Protein backbone atom coordinates (compact mmCIF):
# COMPACT_ATOMS: atom_id res chain seq x y z
CA UNK A 1 0.00 0.00 0.00
CA UNK A 2 2.06 2.88 -1.22
CA UNK A 3 -0.75 4.99 -2.64
CA UNK A 4 -0.05 8.67 -2.02
CA UNK A 5 -3.21 10.72 -1.67
CA UNK A 6 -3.12 14.06 -3.38
CA UNK A 7 -6.31 15.98 -2.69
CA UNK A 8 -4.58 19.24 -3.58
CA UNK A 9 -4.69 18.18 -7.21
CA UNK A 10 -8.47 18.70 -7.05
CA UNK A 11 -8.27 22.22 -5.70
CA UNK A 12 -8.14 23.99 -9.09
CA UNK A 13 -11.48 22.35 -9.92
CA UNK A 14 -13.46 23.75 -6.99
CA UNK A 15 -15.65 25.75 -9.33
CA UNK A 16 -16.79 22.62 -11.14
CA UNK A 17 -17.54 20.90 -7.84
CA UNK A 18 -19.56 23.90 -6.78
CA UNK A 19 -21.51 23.93 -10.05
CA UNK A 20 -22.17 20.24 -9.62
CA UNK A 21 -23.48 20.82 -6.10
CA UNK A 22 -25.76 23.60 -7.28
CA UNK A 23 -27.15 21.52 -10.13
CA UNK A 24 -27.66 18.52 -7.90
CA UNK A 25 -29.59 20.73 -5.51
CA UNK A 26 -31.54 22.31 -8.32
CA UNK A 27 -32.54 19.02 -9.93
CA UNK A 28 -33.48 17.41 -6.64
CA UNK A 29 -35.34 20.47 -5.36
CA UNK A 30 -37.37 20.60 -8.56
CA UNK A 31 -38.16 16.89 -8.37
CA UNK A 32 -38.98 17.14 -4.66
CA UNK A 33 -41.48 19.96 -5.04
CA UNK A 34 -43.19 18.68 -8.18
CA UNK A 35 -43.00 15.06 -7.03
CA UNK A 36 -44.60 16.04 -3.75
CA UNK A 37 -47.49 17.76 -5.51
CA UNK A 38 -48.02 14.90 -7.96
CA UNK A 39 -47.67 12.28 -5.26
CA UNK A 40 -50.14 13.99 -2.94
CA UNK A 41 -52.72 14.41 -5.69
CA UNK A 42 -52.25 10.76 -6.65
CA UNK A 43 -52.65 9.66 -3.03
CA UNK A 44 -55.95 11.53 -2.73
CA UNK A 45 -57.09 10.19 -6.10
CA UNK A 46 -56.23 6.67 -5.00
CA UNK A 47 -58.12 7.07 -1.74
CA UNK A 48 -61.16 8.84 -3.13
CA UNK A 49 -61.22 8.66 -6.93
CA UNK A 50 -63.37 6.67 -9.35
CA UNK A 51 -62.37 3.01 -9.83
CA UNK A 52 -60.72 3.90 -13.13
CA UNK A 53 -58.62 6.68 -11.57
CA UNK A 54 -57.68 4.40 -8.70
CA UNK A 55 -56.44 1.73 -11.08
CA UNK A 56 -54.57 4.29 -13.17
CA UNK A 57 -52.72 5.62 -10.13
CA UNK A 58 -52.01 2.12 -8.83
CA UNK A 59 -50.51 1.18 -12.20
CA UNK A 60 -48.29 4.27 -12.25
CA UNK A 61 -47.04 3.56 -8.73
CA UNK A 62 -46.36 -0.13 -9.39
CA UNK A 63 -44.59 0.47 -12.70
CA UNK A 64 -42.29 3.07 -11.16
CA UNK A 65 -41.58 1.11 -8.01
CA UNK A 66 -40.73 -2.04 -9.93
CA UNK A 67 -38.35 -0.68 -12.55
CA UNK A 68 -34.82 0.65 -12.06
CA UNK A 69 -34.41 4.39 -11.77
CA UNK A 70 -31.61 4.33 -14.35
CA UNK A 71 -33.95 2.80 -16.91
CA UNK A 72 -36.59 5.41 -16.10
CA UNK A 73 -34.01 8.14 -16.63
CA UNK A 74 -33.03 6.73 -20.03
CA UNK A 75 -36.66 6.34 -21.07
CA UNK A 76 -37.41 9.94 -20.10
CA UNK A 77 -34.31 11.24 -21.87
CA UNK A 78 -34.69 9.33 -25.12
CA UNK A 79 -38.47 9.30 -24.98
CA UNK A 80 -38.72 13.07 -24.84
CA UNK A 81 -36.19 13.38 -27.65
CA UNK A 82 -38.21 10.93 -29.76
CA UNK A 83 -41.27 13.10 -29.31
CA UNK A 84 -39.29 15.77 -31.10
CA UNK A 85 -39.10 18.02 -28.06
CA UNK A 86 -35.65 19.35 -27.33
CA UNK A 87 -34.88 19.45 -23.66
CA UNK A 88 -31.52 19.55 -21.95
CA UNK A 89 -30.24 16.56 -20.03
CA UNK A 90 -30.86 18.50 -16.82
CA UNK A 91 -34.53 18.99 -17.64
CA UNK A 92 -34.93 15.35 -18.65
CA UNK A 93 -33.27 14.35 -15.38
CA UNK A 94 -35.65 16.55 -13.38
CA UNK A 95 -38.65 15.08 -15.17
CA UNK A 96 -37.51 11.49 -14.63
CA UNK A 97 -36.82 12.08 -10.95
CA UNK A 98 -40.16 13.86 -10.52
CA UNK A 99 -42.08 10.95 -11.99
CA UNK A 100 -40.04 8.55 -9.86
CA UNK A 101 -40.37 10.33 -6.54
CA UNK A 102 -44.03 11.14 -7.22
CA UNK A 103 -44.82 7.42 -7.07
CA UNK A 104 -42.99 6.94 -3.78
CA UNK A 105 -44.58 10.08 -2.35
CA UNK A 106 -47.99 8.72 -3.32
CA UNK A 107 -47.42 5.59 -1.27
CA UNK A 108 -46.11 7.48 1.74
CA UNK A 109 -48.89 10.08 1.75
CA UNK A 110 -51.46 7.33 1.22
CA UNK A 111 -50.27 5.68 4.42
CA UNK A 112 -50.66 9.06 6.12
CA UNK A 113 -54.21 9.49 4.81
CA UNK A 114 -55.12 6.02 6.03
CA UNK A 115 -53.83 6.87 9.48
CA UNK A 116 -56.41 9.63 9.90
CA UNK A 117 -59.31 8.11 11.78
CA UNK A 118 -62.75 8.26 10.20
CA UNK A 119 -64.08 9.91 13.34
CA UNK A 120 -61.99 12.99 12.54
CA UNK A 121 -63.77 13.40 9.21
CA UNK A 122 -67.11 12.72 10.86
CA UNK A 123 -66.48 15.42 13.45
CA UNK A 124 -65.63 17.87 10.68
CA UNK A 125 -68.72 16.80 8.75
CA UNK A 126 -70.83 17.50 11.85
CA UNK A 127 -69.38 21.03 11.87
CA UNK A 128 -70.82 21.57 8.38
CA UNK A 129 -67.46 21.70 6.61
CA UNK A 130 -67.50 20.88 2.91
CA UNK A 131 -65.68 17.86 1.50
CA UNK A 132 -62.82 19.98 0.21
CA UNK A 133 -62.52 21.82 3.51
CA UNK A 134 -62.48 18.54 5.41
CA UNK A 135 -59.76 17.18 3.16
CA UNK A 136 -57.64 20.26 3.42
CA UNK A 137 -57.96 21.11 7.12
CA UNK A 138 -58.58 17.79 8.79
CA UNK A 139 -57.08 15.11 6.54
CA UNK A 140 -54.18 16.24 4.39
CA UNK A 141 -52.36 18.50 6.82
CA UNK A 142 -52.22 16.07 9.74
CA UNK A 143 -51.59 13.16 7.35
CA UNK A 144 -48.52 14.85 5.92
CA UNK A 145 -47.38 15.87 9.37
CA UNK A 146 -47.54 12.23 10.39
CA UNK A 147 -45.49 10.91 7.45
CA UNK A 148 -43.11 13.87 7.31
CA UNK A 149 -40.11 11.85 8.57
CA UNK A 150 -40.64 9.24 5.83
CA UNK A 151 -40.98 11.98 3.23
CA UNK A 152 -37.73 13.54 4.45
CA UNK A 153 -35.87 10.24 4.05
CA UNK A 154 -37.37 9.75 0.62
CA UNK A 155 -36.24 13.18 -0.56
CA UNK A 156 -32.74 12.75 0.85
CA UNK A 157 -32.60 9.46 -1.00
CA UNK A 158 -33.76 11.26 -4.13
CA UNK A 159 -30.95 13.78 -3.80
CA UNK A 160 -28.43 10.93 -3.60
CA UNK A 161 -30.10 9.00 -6.41
CA UNK A 162 -29.91 12.05 -8.66
CA UNK A 163 -26.26 11.04 -9.19
CA UNK A 164 -27.62 8.45 -11.59
CA UNK A 165 -28.58 11.18 -14.02
CA UNK A 166 -24.89 11.68 -14.71
CA UNK A 167 -25.49 8.76 -17.08
CA UNK A 168 -27.38 11.06 -19.45
CA UNK A 169 -24.71 13.69 -18.75
CA UNK A 170 -26.92 15.93 -16.69
CA UNK A 171 -24.32 18.31 -15.31
CA UNK A 172 -24.79 17.47 -11.66
CA UNK A 173 -22.21 16.64 -9.01
CA UNK A 174 -21.35 13.08 -10.05
CA UNK A 175 -20.99 14.11 -13.68
CA UNK A 176 -18.65 16.88 -12.57
CA UNK A 177 -16.65 14.29 -10.66
CA UNK A 178 -16.48 12.04 -13.69
CA UNK A 179 -15.00 14.87 -15.72
CA UNK A 180 -12.59 15.97 -13.03
CA UNK A 181 -11.17 12.51 -12.48
CA UNK A 182 -10.69 12.03 -16.20
CA UNK A 183 -8.47 15.07 -16.43
CA UNK A 184 -6.65 14.80 -13.10
CA UNK A 185 -6.34 10.99 -13.12
CA UNK A 186 -7.06 11.27 -9.38
CA UNK A 187 -10.14 9.03 -9.40
CA UNK A 188 -9.88 7.82 -5.84
CA UNK A 189 -9.48 11.30 -4.40
CA UNK A 190 -12.21 12.70 -6.62
CA UNK A 191 -14.81 10.17 -5.54
CA UNK A 192 -13.79 10.40 -1.89
CA UNK A 193 -14.24 14.15 -2.13
CA UNK A 194 -17.57 13.76 -3.89
CA UNK A 195 -18.73 11.20 -1.35
CA UNK A 196 -17.90 13.64 1.38
CA UNK A 197 -19.80 16.40 -0.40
CA UNK A 198 -22.87 14.16 -0.73
CA UNK A 199 -22.60 13.39 2.96
CA UNK A 200 -22.62 17.08 3.80
CA UNK A 201 -25.48 17.69 1.37
CA UNK A 202 -27.53 14.97 3.06
CA UNK A 203 -27.09 16.64 6.41
CA UNK A 204 -27.96 20.01 4.95
CA UNK A 205 -31.10 18.68 3.24
CA UNK A 206 -32.16 16.89 6.42
CA UNK A 207 -31.61 20.05 8.44
CA UNK A 208 -33.57 22.09 5.92
CA UNK A 209 -36.48 19.66 6.13
CA UNK A 210 -36.40 19.72 9.91
CA UNK A 211 -36.44 23.51 9.91
CA UNK A 212 -39.25 23.65 7.38
CA UNK A 213 -41.23 21.11 9.38
CA UNK A 214 -40.86 23.12 12.55
CA UNK A 215 -42.23 26.15 10.75
CA UNK A 216 -45.17 24.46 9.10
CA UNK A 217 -46.20 22.05 11.84
CA UNK A 218 -46.52 24.53 14.66
CA UNK A 219 -47.73 21.97 17.17
CA UNK A 220 -44.39 20.16 17.02
CA UNK A 221 -42.54 23.36 17.67
CA UNK A 222 -44.72 24.40 20.59
CA UNK A 223 -44.79 21.02 22.27
CA UNK A 224 -41.14 20.38 21.51
CA UNK A 225 -41.88 16.94 20.07
CA UNK A 226 -39.48 15.71 17.44
CA UNK A 227 -40.75 15.19 13.95
Amino acid sequence: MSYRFDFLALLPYWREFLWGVLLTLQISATATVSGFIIGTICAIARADGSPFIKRLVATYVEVIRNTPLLVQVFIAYFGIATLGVHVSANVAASIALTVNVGAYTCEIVRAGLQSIHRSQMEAAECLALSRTQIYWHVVIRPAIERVYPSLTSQYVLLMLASSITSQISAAELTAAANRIQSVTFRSFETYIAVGFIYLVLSFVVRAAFALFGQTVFTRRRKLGTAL
Partner: protein
Amino acid sequence: MSPIVKLTDVHKYFGTYKVLEGVTFEVPRGGVAAIIGQSGSGKSTALRCINALEAIQGGTIDVCGHAIQDPELNRRALRCDVGMVFQSYNLFPHLTVEQNIMLAPTCVKLMRKPQARDLAHQVLAQVGLAEKAEHYPEQLSGGQQQRVAIARSLAMKPKLMLFDEVTSALDPQLTGEVLKVMEELARGGMTMILVTHEMAFARKVASQVIYMHKGTVWETGSGTMLDSPRTAELRSFVNNGL
Protein backbone atom coordinates in the same frame (compact mmCIF):
# COMPACT_ATOMS: atom_id res chain seq x y z
CA MET B 1 -95.11 24.23 20.57
CA SER B 2 -93.91 22.49 17.43
CA PRO B 3 -91.13 19.98 18.03
CA ILE B 4 -87.55 20.61 16.94
CA VAL B 5 -86.98 16.91 16.39
CA LYS B 6 -89.62 14.42 15.38
CA LEU B 7 -88.95 10.78 14.59
CA THR B 8 -91.84 8.82 13.15
CA ASP B 9 -91.66 5.04 12.83
CA VAL B 10 -87.96 5.05 11.94
CA HIS B 11 -86.47 1.82 10.61
CA LYS B 12 -82.79 1.26 10.16
CA TYR B 13 -80.91 -1.82 8.93
CA PHE B 14 -77.24 -2.59 8.72
CA GLY B 15 -77.42 -5.01 5.84
CA THR B 16 -80.11 -7.44 6.95
CA TYR B 17 -79.53 -6.69 10.62
CA LYS B 18 -82.36 -4.59 12.00
CA VAL B 19 -81.14 -1.96 14.46
CA LEU B 20 -84.11 0.42 14.71
CA GLU B 21 -87.59 -1.07 14.47
CA GLY B 22 -90.07 1.76 14.38
CA VAL B 23 -88.63 4.42 16.64
CA THR B 24 -91.01 7.29 17.36
CA PHE B 25 -90.45 10.26 19.64
CA GLU B 26 -90.29 14.01 19.55
CA VAL B 27 -88.43 16.70 21.42
CA PRO B 28 -89.90 20.22 21.81
CA ARG B 29 -87.88 23.41 21.67
CA GLY B 30 -85.85 23.73 24.86
CA GLY B 31 -86.51 20.09 25.76
CA VAL B 32 -83.83 17.81 27.13
CA ALA B 33 -84.28 14.18 26.12
CA ALA B 34 -82.13 11.51 27.75
CA ILE B 35 -81.90 8.24 25.85
CA ILE B 36 -81.00 5.31 28.05
CA GLY B 37 -80.81 1.57 27.42
CA GLN B 38 -78.54 -1.44 27.26
CA SER B 39 -75.52 -1.41 25.04
CA GLY B 40 -76.51 -2.42 21.53
CA SER B 41 -80.12 -1.24 21.84
CA GLY B 42 -79.66 1.30 19.05
CA LYS B 43 -79.18 4.54 21.01
CA SER B 44 -76.12 5.76 19.07
CA THR B 45 -77.67 4.72 15.79
CA ALA B 46 -80.81 6.74 16.55
CA LEU B 47 -78.70 9.78 17.36
CA ARG B 48 -76.61 9.34 14.21
CA CYS B 49 -79.75 9.06 12.09
CA ILE B 50 -80.98 12.36 13.49
CA ASN B 51 -77.79 14.00 12.21
CA ALA B 52 -77.96 12.17 8.87
CA LEU B 53 -74.75 10.28 9.56
CA GLU B 54 -76.69 7.10 8.78
CA ALA B 55 -79.34 6.65 6.14
CA ILE B 56 -82.72 5.35 7.28
CA GLN B 57 -84.71 2.73 5.43
CA GLY B 58 -88.17 3.59 6.72
CA GLY B 59 -90.11 6.31 8.51
CA THR B 60 -89.40 10.02 8.68
CA ILE B 61 -87.19 12.29 10.75
CA ASP B 62 -87.72 16.00 10.89
CA VAL B 63 -84.94 18.09 12.43
CA CYS B 64 -85.40 21.87 12.57
CA GLY B 65 -87.37 21.70 9.34
CA HIS B 66 -84.91 19.40 7.54
CA ALA B 67 -86.39 16.14 6.27
CA ILE B 68 -83.59 13.63 6.93
CA GLN B 69 -85.10 10.91 4.73
CA ASP B 70 -85.15 13.25 1.73
CA PRO B 71 -82.52 12.20 -0.82
CA GLU B 72 -82.05 15.90 -1.63
CA LEU B 73 -81.30 16.75 2.00
CA ASN B 74 -78.86 19.63 2.37
CA ARG B 75 -76.52 18.07 4.92
CA ARG B 76 -74.41 21.15 5.49
CA ALA B 77 -77.48 23.27 6.24
CA LEU B 78 -78.66 20.57 8.64
CA ARG B 79 -75.33 20.57 10.45
CA CYS B 80 -75.43 24.33 10.86
CA ASP B 81 -78.52 23.73 12.99
CA VAL B 82 -77.30 20.63 14.82
CA GLY B 83 -74.22 20.26 17.02
CA MET B 84 -72.91 16.82 17.91
CA VAL B 85 -70.46 15.70 20.59
CA PHE B 86 -68.96 12.22 20.70
CA GLN B 87 -67.62 9.95 23.38
CA SER B 88 -64.09 10.21 21.97
CA TYR B 89 -64.07 14.06 21.77
CA ASN B 90 -62.69 14.00 18.20
CA LEU B 91 -60.81 17.26 18.53
CA PHE B 92 -58.38 17.99 15.71
CA PRO B 93 -55.00 17.16 17.27
CA HIS B 94 -52.92 19.41 15.01
CA LEU B 95 -54.91 22.54 15.86
CA THR B 96 -54.92 24.54 19.09
CA VAL B 97 -58.09 24.71 21.15
CA GLU B 98 -58.82 28.10 19.67
CA GLN B 99 -58.17 26.92 16.10
CA ASN B 100 -60.39 23.90 16.66
CA ILE B 101 -63.22 26.23 17.56
CA MET B 102 -62.51 28.84 14.88
CA LEU B 103 -62.35 26.35 12.01
CA ALA B 104 -66.07 25.93 11.33
CA PRO B 105 -67.12 29.59 11.84
CA THR B 106 -64.38 30.77 9.45
CA CYS B 107 -64.84 27.99 6.87
CA VAL B 108 -68.60 27.64 6.94
CA LYS B 109 -69.90 31.02 8.04
CA LEU B 110 -66.99 32.92 6.48
CA MET B 111 -66.47 34.79 9.71
CA ARG B 112 -63.32 36.93 9.88
CA LYS B 113 -60.50 35.63 12.07
CA PRO B 114 -60.69 38.33 14.79
CA GLN B 115 -64.45 37.82 15.21
CA ALA B 116 -64.03 34.07 15.20
CA ARG B 117 -61.33 34.37 17.86
CA ASP B 118 -63.64 36.50 20.03
CA LEU B 119 -66.34 33.90 19.55
CA ALA B 120 -63.91 31.13 20.50
CA HIS B 121 -63.01 32.90 23.72
CA GLN B 122 -66.66 33.47 24.45
CA VAL B 123 -67.64 29.80 24.12
CA LEU B 124 -64.50 28.73 25.97
CA ALA B 125 -65.50 30.95 28.87
CA GLN B 126 -68.90 29.30 28.76
CA VAL B 127 -67.30 25.89 29.40
CA GLY B 128 -64.81 27.34 31.89
CA LEU B 129 -61.67 26.98 29.77
CA ALA B 130 -60.90 30.55 28.74
CA GLU B 131 -57.24 30.17 29.72
CA LYS B 132 -56.67 27.09 27.51
CA ALA B 133 -57.17 28.76 24.13
CA GLU B 134 -53.54 28.40 23.06
CA HIS B 135 -53.16 24.80 24.22
CA TYR B 136 -53.19 21.73 22.02
CA PRO B 137 -55.73 18.98 22.74
CA GLU B 138 -53.05 16.55 23.94
CA GLN B 139 -52.14 19.03 26.69
CA LEU B 140 -55.63 18.81 28.19
CA SER B 141 -57.34 16.26 30.41
CA GLY B 142 -60.17 14.18 28.95
CA GLY B 143 -62.76 16.30 30.69
CA GLN B 144 -61.22 19.48 29.35
CA GLN B 145 -61.04 18.05 25.84
CA GLN B 146 -64.70 17.13 26.01
CA ARG B 147 -65.61 20.63 27.16
CA VAL B 148 -63.63 22.04 24.23
CA ALA B 149 -65.58 19.72 21.92
CA ILE B 150 -68.80 21.12 23.38
CA ALA B 151 -67.51 24.68 22.94
CA ARG B 152 -66.56 23.88 19.34
CA SER B 153 -70.14 22.84 18.65
CA LEU B 154 -71.58 25.84 20.47
CA ALA B 155 -69.56 28.22 18.30
CA MET B 156 -71.82 27.27 15.39
CA LYS B 157 -74.85 28.43 17.39
CA PRO B 158 -76.82 25.21 16.90
CA LYS B 159 -80.51 24.94 17.62
CA LEU B 160 -80.09 21.36 18.78
CA MET B 161 -77.23 19.53 20.49
CA LEU B 162 -76.66 15.78 20.35
CA PHE B 163 -74.46 14.09 22.95
CA ASP B 164 -73.46 10.45 22.54
CA GLU B 165 -72.17 9.08 25.85
CA VAL B 166 -69.90 12.07 26.21
CA THR B 167 -68.78 11.15 29.73
CA SER B 168 -68.27 7.42 29.25
CA ALA B 169 -64.53 7.73 28.77
CA LEU B 170 -64.05 9.93 31.85
CA ASP B 171 -63.45 9.23 35.52
CA PRO B 172 -66.11 10.45 37.99
CA GLN B 173 -64.51 13.79 38.77
CA LEU B 174 -64.04 14.75 35.11
CA THR B 175 -67.53 13.43 34.38
CA GLY B 176 -68.84 15.92 36.92
CA GLU B 177 -67.27 18.92 35.23
CA VAL B 178 -68.66 17.95 31.83
CA LEU B 179 -72.14 17.26 33.21
CA LYS B 180 -72.08 20.65 34.89
CA VAL B 181 -71.49 22.33 31.52
CA MET B 182 -74.32 20.33 29.99
CA GLU B 183 -76.65 21.19 32.84
CA GLU B 184 -75.94 24.89 32.37
CA LEU B 185 -76.64 24.51 28.66
CA ALA B 186 -79.97 22.87 29.43
CA ARG B 187 -80.84 25.59 31.87
CA GLY B 188 -79.97 28.17 29.22
CA GLY B 189 -82.72 26.74 27.01
CA MET B 190 -80.69 24.60 24.59
CA THR B 191 -82.62 21.74 23.04
CA MET B 192 -80.61 18.59 23.72
CA ILE B 193 -80.75 14.87 23.10
CA LEU B 194 -78.23 12.89 25.06
CA VAL B 195 -77.40 9.23 25.23
CA THR B 196 -76.19 8.62 28.74
CA HIS B 197 -75.52 6.11 31.48
CA GLU B 198 -75.69 8.81 34.16
CA MET B 199 -79.07 8.02 35.68
CA ALA B 200 -78.82 10.72 38.33
CA PHE B 201 -78.17 13.28 35.64
CA ALA B 202 -81.06 12.04 33.50
CA ARG B 203 -83.38 12.17 36.49
CA LYS B 204 -82.34 15.69 37.39
CA VAL B 205 -81.89 17.45 34.06
CA ALA B 206 -83.96 15.61 31.46
CA SER B 207 -87.44 16.81 30.70
CA GLN B 208 -88.02 13.49 29.01
CA VAL B 209 -86.43 10.05 29.39
CA ILE B 210 -86.49 7.58 26.52
CA TYR B 211 -85.71 3.97 27.36
CA MET B 212 -84.65 2.10 24.23
CA HIS B 213 -84.74 -1.65 24.07
CA LYS B 214 -84.20 -3.91 21.03
CA GLY B 215 -84.33 -1.01 18.59
CA THR B 216 -87.60 0.49 19.83
CA VAL B 217 -88.72 3.09 22.35
CA TRP B 218 -89.73 0.65 25.08
CA GLU B 219 -90.81 3.16 27.66
CA THR B 220 -90.81 6.93 27.81
CA GLY B 221 -91.78 9.56 30.32
CA SER B 222 -90.42 12.19 32.66
CA GLY B 223 -87.39 11.66 34.92
CA THR B 224 -89.60 10.14 37.64
CA MET B 225 -90.29 7.20 35.32
CA LEU B 226 -86.97 5.81 36.53
CA ASP B 227 -88.34 5.57 40.07
CA SER B 228 -91.42 3.60 39.07
CA PRO B 229 -90.81 1.70 35.82
CA ARG B 230 -93.83 0.19 34.13
CA THR B 231 -92.02 -2.47 32.15
CA ALA B 232 -89.99 -5.33 33.58
CA GLU B 233 -87.13 -4.53 31.20
CA LEU B 234 -86.71 -0.96 32.44
CA ARG B 235 -87.05 -2.14 36.04
CA SER B 236 -84.21 -4.62 35.65
CA PHE B 237 -82.16 -2.04 33.71
CA VAL B 238 -82.54 0.52 36.47
CA ASN B 239 -81.95 -2.00 39.24
CA ASN B 240 -78.78 -3.30 37.68
CA GLY B 241 -77.46 0.21 38.00
CA LEU B 242 -76.38 0.24 34.39
